[in-house]
């Protein structure tokens, strides 16, 4: 399989790097502090392909901390608040759009 770093990187707006935490699979985002956070608000924002490639590079290098890292689109409003850029990422942030059976 092609490494994420070997794939052509094309971004059309603000983006973040997201992954799942290795030991438990929880959704995480790469931060400016070269760490991971479970809160999208902490995510490092990149706006160019080069910056995205660099952020993805350091994320993939943390093979022990995260699995399946990739670049995801976000929206950033005037206050700097970050929102997911598509439905898939919205669901990863908010959770499933249905009530879980055990709680029904």
């Amino acid at each position: 399989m092609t490494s994420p770093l070997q794939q052509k990187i094309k971004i059309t707006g603000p983006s973040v790097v997201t992954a799942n935490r290795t030991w438990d699979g929880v959704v995480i985002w790469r931060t400016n502090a070269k760490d991971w956070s479970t809160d999208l608000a902490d995510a490092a924002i990149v706006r160019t392909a080069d910056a995205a490639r660099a952020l993805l590079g350091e994320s993939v290098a943390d093979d022990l901390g995260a699995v399946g890292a990739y670049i995801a689109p976000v929206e950033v409003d005037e206050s700097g608040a970050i929102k997911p850029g598509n439905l898939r990422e919205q669901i990863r942030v908010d959770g499933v759009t249905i009530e879980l059976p055990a709680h029904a």
Partner: protein
Amino acid sequence: MYAYDEIDRTLINERVSEFRDQVKRRLSGELSEDEFKMIRLMNGVYLQLHAYMFRVAIPYGTLSSAQLRKLAHVARKYDRGYGHFTTRQNIQFNWIKLADLPDALADLAEVGIHAMQTSGNCTRNITADQWAGVAPGEVEDPRIWAELLRQYSTLHPEFSFLPRKFKFAITASAHDRAAIKVHDIGLRLHRNDKGETGFEVLVGGGLGRTPFIGKTIREFVPGRDLLSYVEAILRVYNQYGRRDNIYKARIKILVHELGIEKFAEEVETEWLQIRDSTLALDAAVVEDIRSRFSYPAYEKLAPMPDELKQAAADPQFEAWRTNSVAPHKVQGYAIVTLSLKPIGGAPGDATAAQMDAVADLADKYSFGEIRVGHEQNLAFPHVAKRDLPALWRALDKIGVATPNVNLVTDIIACPGLDYCSLANARSIPIAQELTRRFANHDTANLIGRLHVNISGCINACGHHHVGNIGILGVEKNGEEVYQITIGGRADENAELGKLIGPAVPYAEVADVVEDIVEAYLALRERPDELFIDAVKRLGVEPFRERVYATR
């Protein structure tokens, strides 16, 4: 039920130990994800949107009550209190932690359950008719052969790295409940003109991106030759199947590109060389497998007990009985389907509490045995008819007696974009909305048998191609839209559905299905002309007109 022997138990326990060590090395950094990924997949562990997903095999859809209780235990202890029964007689847990997986596997191993070959390019879980062994008119119990195939294919060194995954399904009934025509190999146990039992072998069926109905490669393969014949097929596939393009790697593409005649020639050539090898099944081997299946000691019971006559006065009971209770091969007994399709619920989901309760009821009413069907429902295979009223009340209390089996709200759906990293669109909310639209039982009953199948992407885990109404979610310009097909079916007359027109937005899917159903009700020749038969007679056009006239 099949009783595992020491070899099975040792194999499963060794696998748990091996995986425990592999997980430990992954979590310590000794193994990279690149090194670990294939290992976890071979143990049924995927990475989904929110977490790891753990897929556990239920071979030929047969579970004991103890096994179901253990699945409930895993759901409760390691997950979020529920599991999802799939279209391939597996159960999936959606929230499990990698660090917990070895313990979960060890717990499952205590009752002979494992997750081997629930992923990867190998032979997957062998599936079968969920009524196997109890269906009237069945040639014989196909699970004996499914178990032989399971033993043969488990960790088979030659076939652990096929060009792509490989799925078997088997039935021994004239009416196909196992969807054998949409599997890589479909097996239909039948009798030939001489009264001998053997298999019609179909090959190259499948759904996904490029759907095909399986083609008969041999009308009759004696039981003695089953393993050598399927091995010949697997060898030809292993040799010629494409490994350069994942979308063209399934055997269906090879069969299509070579043509069934040429493919069959290749198989015959291979088969001649191995037919009389150690793969030839000695009758004693088959008998040994057969002897490890235990069957209930059925009583001699009246075909129509008083309890049933009295309960017939209750219209709610009758509604359930009509849709959920099927004839059994033994007089006085019945097969009962437990609907995992409550109105507003996620198809195929069951809570840990429901699984425990179902296990208890199986002990009380079904000789401790439960079946899982590809339609994502459960079944009790051995229920005394006299017990049906009491069983119905108990099932109703735990929410698995919705009287909708085979009706429009008995929907097959994949997890879709709510869970799955491959999905482009949501499936479960569409299913939930449809169940609410058709919640009125009288309406659903008036419509009659109608299978709605929903997939959240082209991989077709929700079998949309073979739904009477098929719904495929795709993504277009960042929005979820859905292609609708009609006329598909997965039984012995399997067909792929035909597209009725342009995709429709998420918010309109339920309206479109209602339009299709209303068109059917207006156009059917008589009340007992099924939807699928009306589509066959009328074609797509009247339905297309109805749906798109105002869109």
